[in-house]
């Protein structure tokens, strides 16, 4: 009696047919890899190699990309003791926290509103998504006109209702808020669509059951929608964090990092070290490595938290 299950187990794991299966020809086994090869080559040459070489470059001092002096960790020491870098890090953290919080909250809100919309859902979805299609340079220029203190449309409207003329782009505190708002406006459509897809994958029976139990709209939102949207929210959080740390192009055309460095974020700092005189490729690379480590760590933490919540 005791021997029977022991004998049955291997049979269940490996069916008899599997034993008889012939190994596929080498060509067939290689085919998937060959299909992947062109993409992996491009990815390797244009992404992996430059990234690894960027780390390598951060250990050297070079002003002309031809003569390189090995300096070990000196570039990291210099960058971490640079006052400008520290203020840039503070600006970046403030921007990322505000950008991620506002975009995630608004994307949930807009997704819920779009989901509830009976008529013209496609139209509103398209309108919300439109800024995503615009070039960041154009976004920066257009918002620069809109937010101009003296001639901008925003202040014209505020002026008509007696709210004065705030210096959106020339007062340091306001400028960072303006940059966050423009960043949110640019990405909101994309995040809302992801949230909308997440919403639509929630089983409608759950809401019907809640209706039968007499749950109100708020209860359904907090007890069904938000908990079940958690995996999607995690994706949006990770994407928004990465986009927040990478923000540069629209800010550069909107404020140029000003006033008085109030909107200079880490990518602009790296860009200026690498491409503006005096050129410091080593310092720029060290900045890039630090940025990569920060984004990687935050993403990893987000992912681990998400996985733990999924498991529970």
């Amino acid at each position, binding site marked *: 009696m005791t021997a029977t299950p022991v004998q049955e187990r291997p049979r269940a794991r490996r069916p008899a047919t599997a034993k008889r299966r012939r190994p596929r020809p080498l060509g067939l086994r290689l085919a998937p890899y060959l299909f992947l090869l062109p993409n992996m080559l491009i990815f390797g040459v244009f992404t*992996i190699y430059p990234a*690894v*070489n960027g*780390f*390598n*470059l951060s*250990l*050297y001092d*070079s002003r*002309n*990309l*031809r*003569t*390189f002096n*090995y300096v070990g960790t000196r570039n990291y020491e210099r960058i971490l003791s640079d006052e400008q870098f520290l203020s840039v890090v503070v600006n970046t953290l403030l921007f990322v926290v505000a950008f991620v919080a506002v975009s995630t909250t608004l994307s949930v809100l807009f997704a819920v509103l779009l989901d509830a919309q009976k008529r013209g859902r496609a139209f509103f979805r398209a309108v919300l998504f439109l800024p995503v299609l615009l070039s960041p340079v154009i976004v920066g220029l257009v918002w620069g006109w809109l937010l*101009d*203190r*003296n001639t901008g449309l925003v202040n014209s409207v505020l002026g008509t209702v007696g709210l004065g003329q705030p*210096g959106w*782009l*020339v007062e*340091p505190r306001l400028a960072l808020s303006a940059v966050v708002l423009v960043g949110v406006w640019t990405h909101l459509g994309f995040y809302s669509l992801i949230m909308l897809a997440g919403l639509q994958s929630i089983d409608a029976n759950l809401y019907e059951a809640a209706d039968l139990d007499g749950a109100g709209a708020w209860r359904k939102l907090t007890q069904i929608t938000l908990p079940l949207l958690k995996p999607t929210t995690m994706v949006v959080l990770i994407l928004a964090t990465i986009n927040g740390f990478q923000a540069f192009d629209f800010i*550069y055309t909107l*404020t*140029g*990092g*000003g*006033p*008085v*460095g109030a*909107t*200079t974020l880490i990518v602009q700092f790296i860009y*200026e070290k690498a*491409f503006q*005189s*005096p*050129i410091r490729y080593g310092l720029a690379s060290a900045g890039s490595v630090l940025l990569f480590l920060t984004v990687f760590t935050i993403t990893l933490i987000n992912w681990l938290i998400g996985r733990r919540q999924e498991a529970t």
Partner: protein
Amino acid sequence: MRLRTGWRGTIVVAAAAVLLAGCAPGGGGDSGGGGQQPQSSGDFRGKTLTYLYFTDGPDEQATRDAIAAFQKETGAKVDLQIIPFADLEASLRARLSGGQAPDVVRLADIAAFRDDLLDLAPYVGKDYADQFIDGMVTAAKSKDGGLLAVPSDLTMNGPFINLDMFQKAGIQPPTNEKPWTWDEMLANADKARQAARAQYSFAMDRSGHRVSTVLSQFGTRLITDGKETLDQAKAEKAIGTLTGLMTGGKADKDFWLASGSKYKGANEIFLAQATPVYLSGNWQVSQFAKATTFNWKAIPNPCAEQCGGFPGGKFIAALAKSDTPDLAAAFIKFSTSKEQQTALDIKAQFLPTRKDLVAQGVSYTSRSDDMAAFLADVKRTAQENYGTNTSPAFGVAAKAVVDEMSKVVAGQEDVATAVRNIKKATDTRLKEVGE
């Protein structure tokens, strides 16, 4: 199992990084810098020369005409490669690094490429440089006295006035022989502003180069002979005057604060007739000749302790790695000859770098009075200012001027602190470039 595969990948990447870290990027490390033996100028027929160029606008056609004349005279072909000014340094570095260096290049800043430039003296003659403005030639000399570039065109900072506004206020503009003082200019600008009901009295490009004009007029400069020489009291007076105009509402404060660390021209403020005085430079003449709807005039720079303006300018140089150094040198000599420079200056409304043309003047076909105002200031400008402008530390010092002035305008620090910080940034950079 999945975890183990992930670790294996990590180890491979880390090993690659360590291997790469072991080898210096870039390989060769050849710094160029000469080694070419002068060749006798011979028949250039069939030879090709690449010329990396950025254009200020009106000079492009004049340069093409000069190239056509050179090609006709020598039978050589000149491949003109025009790129945006903003890309020049990065592009030239990349090309040098990739072994694709052009033969000839137009440069605004030769300091960054000193090690890569050909010593032209053996080709054009040791005395050739004596024909050009001394201050510019000093900047183009190597440590051992070689000639690394030839000054091709000169710019001079200086003010423009809205003539209609001044006429409304009943104020006559100054003559080239008797410039206004700073006090006179600001008082007259205020009157013109009030008469014309303009928004501001004064506008200036957001540029450390333009502020250097005012520093020089107040009797000090950022760098002299490779040393930081900003006089605290004089600089406070100069910078205090400019920031005071902004904080007092006589100049556009937002314009100065709104563009971060980037250069920004205030020409739109002048073109919109929002100010009677605009401090910029001679390169605006051809643009204003086309774009204005009012009467305007270039006037000589105002004087405080000193008169005159602050120079800028471009150089034409050959690369040491050129395959045809004799042809490159011949082209440079041809382009900077009296005949070609006269043609370029007339067509592009540039200022001459040749002493003979500065002395005799250039007969511009339009707006000649305005160009004469700038030319008059070339003679009044201190030769030391040329050295300041071409110092390898000037870019950083000029950026510090803009950044520190922004802090003063934003109310984050006082003028004295700003000047101290500018001095510190300049000194630090000078030590770096002297390493």
